[in-house]
């Protein structure tokens, strides 16, 4: 490898050719402030527009200052990162951003988590010398995301996520000059676009320009209404990240504390979406087996590969972009919606509460779940199966509002019957987990044999596209995994072209799967955090006594008492759905 020698703040540095000044500096512990730049190592995600100009440094012999994030280190360079000239310029640049900013920090959803606020603080900005115009744009509210683009600083991170990573192309820079802003085409509203509500733009936005629709107020009202029974479900990925909101290190599992906190908040029953994930496996796994058996019996009409359908952003994606493939995904609803529908029928009957008086709240790592729960097909006479879908961040908010000292809570267990789950349900939270859970069950039903091992390392990892062949006792089953919609698109194009080699494919919209969801605590560009959450999920699976969905005793009971069998008429009615052409 060719190496480059340079000095930064008089210290000699050696870096590989191609490294930026920013990388060279951080290698020797010199911190150059950045705002627009973002890199998610391991995921091949980089936003490097060189736009904010906060990272400028002095390069000896160069007339103007150079942006460290996108200037390649070259032989003999002499860099000053904090000269008076640099610091003054940097402060002026930040002042300029602030001069066009509403600065509503007191009431801003992002306050405390805002990179701009941090930067202003870091540079000690106490006065904005250049006052003037604020750009004004319409606020845009959709079922999941609020765009308050007066707060946009044109860092373009959302654009990178929406275009390069997700290949949706909803968000891009429009207009020129002072009016330039990132927006859907023609400054349309998000809900008129092909946005999937994956929330990856929200996950990376450094300011309050993109945030989730906040439903904590509605949940508080429900909790304080004596006529309502309020129950809650928590998605698998939440427990692996919620602790971060309370200063715990990434990857700390807080399942027991989370349950305790939810009880303190006044939920009447605290349940687990993992239970519904087990249910999903039985429905989806059976569907997979039926299609496979038909295929092997020579049925040419059968649609393979089967695609998972538990990610609502992914569902909306193929409804918009690949409507002709809408018969291929499993018809199984997502665990969130399965839970809602069973809660408002089976469970409501059990506790003798009328549907209208039962409020189902979900805690999700996801923004698309907000949209999903508002889809009309998931309501009965206008009453939705899931009333409110809060994000991990919103839950943290509620816990703080409730003055609950989260860290010192004692662990508590979920309630029965919908709180019991298996390790298979837990791993739904990470890329590769749904298909691994499905394999654990499908294998045993298909072969009639016990699995010799439960950990399918070949399905795990962080690469955007993975594949593996699992031997179903002599029948090789080809499995594909994609996370990030750009990767999903590649697999779908293969299916369209008839060249797909897979029998089953798992697709998750968010990089990393739900652990990297748009509703999770902000990662601020540190992909290490996602990896730690992933490890936490697998360790929860390891620690479960039951690790296969079909062995969940409460699921067995649910089928006996209520549903009959997977894919029964009742299951079809309550646990399956159909897709729409939205192209």
């Amino acid at each position, binding site marked *: 490898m060719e190496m480059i020698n340079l000095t930064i703040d008089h210290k000699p540095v050696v870096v590989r050719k191609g490294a930026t000044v920013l990388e060279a500096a951080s290698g020797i512990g010199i911190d150059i402030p950045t705002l627009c730049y973002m890199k998610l190592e391991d995921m091949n995600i980089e936003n490097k527009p060189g*736009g904010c100009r906060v990272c400028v440094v002095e390069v000896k012999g160069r007339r103007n200052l150079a942006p460290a994030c996108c200037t390649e280190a070259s032989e003999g360079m002499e860099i000053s990162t904090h000269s008076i000239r640099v610091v003054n310029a940097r402060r002026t640049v930040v002042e300029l951003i602030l001069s066009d900013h509403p600065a509503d920090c007191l009431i801003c959803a992002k306050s405390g988590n805002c990179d701009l606020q941090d930067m202003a603080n870091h540079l000690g900005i106490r006065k904005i010398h250049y006052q003037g115009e604020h750009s004004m744009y319409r606020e845009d509210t959709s079922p999941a995301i609020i765009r308050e683009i007066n707060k946009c600083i044109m860092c373009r991170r959302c654009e990178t996520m929406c275009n390069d990573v997700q290949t949706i192309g909803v968000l891009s820079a429009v207009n*020129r000059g002072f009016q330039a802003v990132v927006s859907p085409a023609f400054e349309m509203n998000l809900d008129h676009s092909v946005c999937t509500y994956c929330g990856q733009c929200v996950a990376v936005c450094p300011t309050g320009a993109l945030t989730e629709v906040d439903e904590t107020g509605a949940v508080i009202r429900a909790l304080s209404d004596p006529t309502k029974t309020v129950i809650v479900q928590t998605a698998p990925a939440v427990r692996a990240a919620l602790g971060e909101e309370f200063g715990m290190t990434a990857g700390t599992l807080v399942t027991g504390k989370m349950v305790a906190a939810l009880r303190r908040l006044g939920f009447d029953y605290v349940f687990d979406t993992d239970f519904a994930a087990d249910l999903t496996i039985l429905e989806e796994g059976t569907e997979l087996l039926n299609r496979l058996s038909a295929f092997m019996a020579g049925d040419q009409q059968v649609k393979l590969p089967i695609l998972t359908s538990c990610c609502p952003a992914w569902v909306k994606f193929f409804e918009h972009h690949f409507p002709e493939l809408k018969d291929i995904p499993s018809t199984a609803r997502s665990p969130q919606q399965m839970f809602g529908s069973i809660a408002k029928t089976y469970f409501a009957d059990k506790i003798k509460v009328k549907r209208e008086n039962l409020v189902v709240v979900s805690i999700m790592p996801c923004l698309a779940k907000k949209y999903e729960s508002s889809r009309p097909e998931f309501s009965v006479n206008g009453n939705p199966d899931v009333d409110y879908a809060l994000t991990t961040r919103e839950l943290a908010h509620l816990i703080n509002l409730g003055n609950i000292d989260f860290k010192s809570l004692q662990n508590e267990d979920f309630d029965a019957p919908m709180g019991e789950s298996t390790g298979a349900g837990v791993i739904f939270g990470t890329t590769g987990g749904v298909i691994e859970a499905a394999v654990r069950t499908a294998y045993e039903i298909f072969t009639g044999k016990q699995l010799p091992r439960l950990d399918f390392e070949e399905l795990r990892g962080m690469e955007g596209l993975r594949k593996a062949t699992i031997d179903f006792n002599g029948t090789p089953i080809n499995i594909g995994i994609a996370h990030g919609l750009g990767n999903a698109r590649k697999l779908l194009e293969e299916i369209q072209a008839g060249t797909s080699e897979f029998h089953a494919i798992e697709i998750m919209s968010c990089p990393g799967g739900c652990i990297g969801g748009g509703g999770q605590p902000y990662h601020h560009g540190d992909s290490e955090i996602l990896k730690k959450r992933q490890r936490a999920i697998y360790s929860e699976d390891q620690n479960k006594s039951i690790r296969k969905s079909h062995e969940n005793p409460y699921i067995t009971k649910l089928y006996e008492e209520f549903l009959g069998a997977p894919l029964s008429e009742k299951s079809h009615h309550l646990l399956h759905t159909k897709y729409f052409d939205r192209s």
Partner: protein
Amino acid sequence: MTISYQLKRADFIFKNQNDWEEVLSKSISRTPQELINELISSELKGRGGAGFPTGLKWKLTAEISDSTKYVICNADEGEPGTFKDREILSMVPFKVLTGMAVCGYVIGAKEGYIYLRGEYFFLLPELNKIIREFEYYCKEIKFDFTIRIFMGSGAYICGEETALFESMEGKRGEPRNKPPYPSNYGYMGKPTVINNVETLAHTYTIFKYGAKRFYDLGVQYSRGSKLFSVSGDTPKPGIYELELGMSLADFVEEFGDGDTKAVQVGGASGFLVPRKRFNETAIGFQGKLVGISLPTGGSMMLFNSSRSMFNVLDNYLEFFREESCGQCTPCRVGCQQLLKGIKAVKRGEKNTKYLDKLLRLTETMKLTAKCGLGQSVANSFSSIVENFREEMIY
């Protein structure tokens, strides 16, 4: 210091192009190295604004080894009030095509593009016809070079070379960070020479008559002739080919209306020169002999004493605020706050010291903006505010 250079008319650019076939075939019978040397010794500098030595640009691109390279003619001509490139393309297009083809030969490019300003759509049929004729001849002499026209989208910023590449690649026209420069990483990431229409037309003169003929015009550091678009308070607006190096006093003598109070040299991104500096300012590239660099397009706008310099600056800032691509903070927000700022001072809402703050702001913009547009706002701003401070206030 008084500069003694005089205004001299020149007449090369629009002179006949009928011998283009001969110039082309003669040129490509020489070695690329000879041609580069010819250009270098002519000391031709780019006429698109930045004034980069053309011979060196070709040389640097020729030295990169890559099987795909491009030659691009920048005909985006977006500076308000200038239309010299349009005149060249309608009167002597073969000179430009020949310049492109010779460049292709020198650097090893087989494809050329003309990035034509959207408003010049009407030139398209005629240009396409001429290109067919040109390509036909190239085929005949077994010289492999094609030229295509790319229509611009009407944004001023797309004239900036890297924004132009982005726009040709189907992306939003936004300047890239430099380095890397086009000679390494240009259109489609390939080594690219991009030259202004006029620059290419001058190479024709140089290849036809030899470097000396060109070098003998002008003064040290600023060789050759140049087209100027003269506008504003002048009895004879229009396009003139003049030798470089004339003093502004002579220029005003020739083109002024007798009451010239200032001249804006180089359009919105250029400098305003007040009457008291006419004598000490020459028009040419920065160097020892001359006081001021010659920026974009050769636009020369004269103002007489009836003009308010506040309005002039206000117009320029308005222009920048609208035409900035908006991607980098200093320029997107800076232009707006400068505009707002001078209005506030004029209205008495801010005291006059605020002007000094704004001057410092333009200095920061010069240091931190991503491209030439944001970097050059300081030129007109400081030259107008420093020379006509009272007009900014009262």
